[in-house]
């Protein structure tokens, strides 16, 4: 079991390859990727479209299996776990924020934030969800459904959902990509502030160099590899 107090890397990718079949033949998305994140470290991943940034998150969070190579998440080698095992590993400790929010459409803002806590079997999920909605400035919108919220509000709900479980590791995939400038600033501030406050390591995929510059370290990707 991973102990966040230990100085061991919460995430380590070693020689990861991902090749996907396509009608035109196999496509290599990742080509021998090495990537490590230290506890509490904030890492920005930048690179051109198609360089494999989002795939890095999918592989690192255990949402996708690599064709080759090793992925250690919270001290566990992911290739030894099946899909349900990887879901249990993420439960309450690894969170994701997506460019297109991926809120559950039939749940209110509060229920969306409570959902991962409920799945993890945490007590007082509703109360915690309300507290986090308050922290992202959406206390008044807790009974609203995703389609009743603006893009910025939806992303703040998604952020509250990601952090409500106090994760060890937070993945954010272009979290401001679908937002206007004002909302993008607000959400970015929240991500860095709340991640720092909870001590979570952050892997932030972005096209925005200014946003990337706020991270402790910037990793550049091209052609499925980390640039030297």
């Amino acid at each position: 079991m991973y102990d966040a107090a230990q100085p061991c890397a919460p995430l380590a990718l070693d020689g990861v390859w991902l090749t996907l079949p396509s009608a035109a033949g196999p496509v290599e998305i990742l080509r021998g990727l090495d990537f490590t994140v230290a506890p509490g470290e904030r890492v920005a991943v930048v690179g051109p479209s198609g360089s494999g940034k989002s795939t890095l998150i999918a592989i690192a969070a255990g949402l996708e299996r690599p064709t080759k190579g090793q992925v250690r998440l919270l001290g566990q080698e992911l290739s030894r776990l099946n899909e349900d095992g990887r879901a249990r590993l993420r439960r309450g400790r690894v969170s994701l924020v997506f460019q297109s929010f991926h809120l559950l459409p039939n749940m209110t803002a509060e229920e969306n934030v409570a959902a991962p806590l409920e799945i993890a079997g945490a007590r007082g999920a509703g109360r915690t969800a309300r507290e986090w909605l308050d922290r992202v400035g959406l206390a008044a919108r807790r009974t609203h459904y995703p389609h009743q919220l603006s893009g910025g509000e939806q992303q703040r709900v998604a952020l509250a959902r990601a952090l409500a479980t106090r994760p060890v590791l937070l993945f954010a995939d272009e979290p401001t990509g679908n937002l206007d400038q004002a909302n993008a600033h607000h959400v970015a501030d929240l991500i860095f502030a709340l991640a720092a406050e909870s001590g979570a390591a952050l892997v932030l995929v972005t096209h925005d160099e200014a946003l990337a510059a706020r991270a402790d370290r910037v990793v550049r990707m091209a052609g499925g590899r980390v640039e030297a």
Partner: protein
Amino acid sequence: MNLPLSFRFAARELRSGVRGFRIFLACLALGVAAIAAAGSTAEAFRQGLASQASEILGGDLAVTRQSKEFTPAERATLERLGRVSYAAASRAMAEAPNGNRRLVELRGVSDDYPLEGQVTLAGGMRLAAALQPQGDAAGVVVEQALLDRLGLKLGDRFLVGNVPVVARAVLLGEPDRLSRGFNLGPAVLTRLSTVQSGGFLGEGIPFGETARIALKPGVSLRAARHAVTAALPAATFHIRDRNDAAPGFKRLVDQLEYFLGFIGLASLIAGGLGVSGAVGAYLDARRPSIATLKALGADGALVRNVYLIQISLLAGLGILIGVVVGGLAPLGLGALVKDQLPVPALFALYPWPLAKAALFGLLAAAAFSLAPLGQARATPPAALFRQDLAGRLRFGPELIGALLAAMGLAALAIITAPTPISAEVMIAGVAVAFLALFAIGLGAAKIAGALRALTAGPVRIGLANLAGPHSAARTASPAIGLGIGLLAVVVLVQSSLIAEVTVTAPKAAPAMVFTEIPGDQAGAFDAAVAQAFGRPLAPKDYQRFAFATGRITAVKGVPIEQAHIAPQGRFAFDNDISLSAIATQPADASITAGQWWPATYAGPPLVALDQDAAEAARLKVGDTVSLSILGRDMDARIAVLRKVDIGAFGPSFTLVIDPAALAGADLRQLAIAKATPAEEARVTRTLGASFPQVDVISVREQLQAASQLFERLTLAVRGAAAVAGLAGLLVLAGAIAAGARARAKEAATLKVLGAARWQILAAYGIEYGAVGAVAGLAGVALGAAAAWPVVVKVFEATWSVDWAGVAALIGAAAAITGAGGLIAALYALSQRPAPVLRAE
């Protein structure tokens, strides 16, 4: 497994309503309603029958004897058991003063008839008053058909046999009509004494006397049966009680329930594609939510349970709707037609048929929903990043559950069928047809894909859609094809049977049958017929045989009551059978085993037996049957097995015996003739003078009556089969609805590219019209494959295709599905392109 959490998430998911599940609900409700309605209607008839069993039988117990009246001692035994009413039934020719003649079913009843229920006469006259003699004429009540046929009115005198009678009232109903058999002519009811004194019950004349007994209080059916069996000579009588008042009708109800229930089951299976499609489309739309839940840490079981709970609740709702509709529909229908039904029916809500329908629905829902559910469970969370990722169906609990539910569905259908073997054949047929239609749909999609390169414009768009991943050829086509297939079976079987009775049988069968020809006047009878026809008689249109009725009382020494005889052959063992004594092998004997006896044979009795009857009792050449013929009991060895075609022109007797076995008996003769309607009218009239005792049966009339019955049934049976067609349409509607959004986007894109409205309409019309045409053609082909053995092997009729009906089916399938495509296109065209494209 966290069930409370699964329920909580499921409840949240259901907030979006049941919009995507309307077709799911409709498909399930339709199939369940059809099965529930079939079961409830059948139960209403069964309960009606049970509630009026004593009236239908005419008492608690009915004892019938053929060709012999009860002796005074036997009557005394019967009367010790309770009140007894006697009725003697015979056939005779009725003759009007104008010379018109008609075979009638004559019944003479004792004064206390009926013990139970009422005889209904037009005008409300009482039976006893109507049967009062008028001068030297006996009072009779008759069916209207006889008055019409003979040109008589009430109060007119006419002859029945040689007995003058007067028609006093029109007979509308007899309480025990249902418990009696098939009629060859209109009924004439009179006093028992008239029948006894009129010479209708003489030796050698086929008649039956029935004693109906209302048992004294305290006398059980079992005790009464025992007393009757002990007092009357064995194998000379039939005994029935109120629990078995109308066995033929009971079998008919069982078969009717199964036929209608089978259509309901076929609808459930056809609609199953709609169920599966609706669940698949719903879960497909939920793919991002499922992937999100997994990204949040939910395992596959939680995801599966969340959606299983939702689908179970909706399935429960669909089943409930079906049960309510199927339970209430017969009540409503019953209220409307109760007075016009020829049989008693107690329409009510019966729990078992409804529970059975619900169980069918539950198993169908599971069989068709669990596979897409398994696929949803396997949705990878990476679908959040790559929209093309979908779960792959793997062997797991959902697939096992679906297979078990499908097997349960088949098992339930077989267990609840009156004849398991026919259920097995029908279910196997539906399964094979379904798979074949599915394969044809796939093939059609592939062919469309290959052909599109050769085309352009709307045709190309239509073919591309037909070949595409959401092709209706794969989804709606098998369901529509199954519906069309069932309708085709019904249309083709009915058209063949109607052709059989209207075209084939009149050519092959005799037009007339003459019975009760005195053996010593056979030559004179032949001459009289030849004179009436005005031409010499030839074997191709006139044949005469010695004739008697008798019973097979034991096979291989085992009494019939204890022998194992298959249902399809019981007709030859449970009743008196027609038999003949023929010395020389007839030209058309159709021998399948053994050898006919020499013309001069005079040894131990030999018989030629109908092969179907022999097979039912597992008899072969060399085996022994015990017979009771004209009061003689004898054992006979089977020398010949032969194929007897009852409708053919020839010696169509179930049993033929060597003449020496009946030596000395005064055998009557039976003749068959082919005749034009004019010859038939002439011979019927002239025989009234020379051979009044000869009964003339018009086969032509019987065939016409059968034809009219088929015609009347046609609409009802086709209407029932159309339920399966409706299921196919629901699946089509589901496929159209599921693709509506994609169609709107496609239409918007085509509009942006400059396509005109007519081009888009034409493309969709071509696509869906092709789906309908493929489904129609495949359905008709499979329907024909299923109907052919039914017509040729089961009914032994000539295969005759109703081309107009077949063309109508295919045309309707193409037209309706094409219209569905046009509706889809109109919907897509009604959407403004900009918002549609922006939404993507």
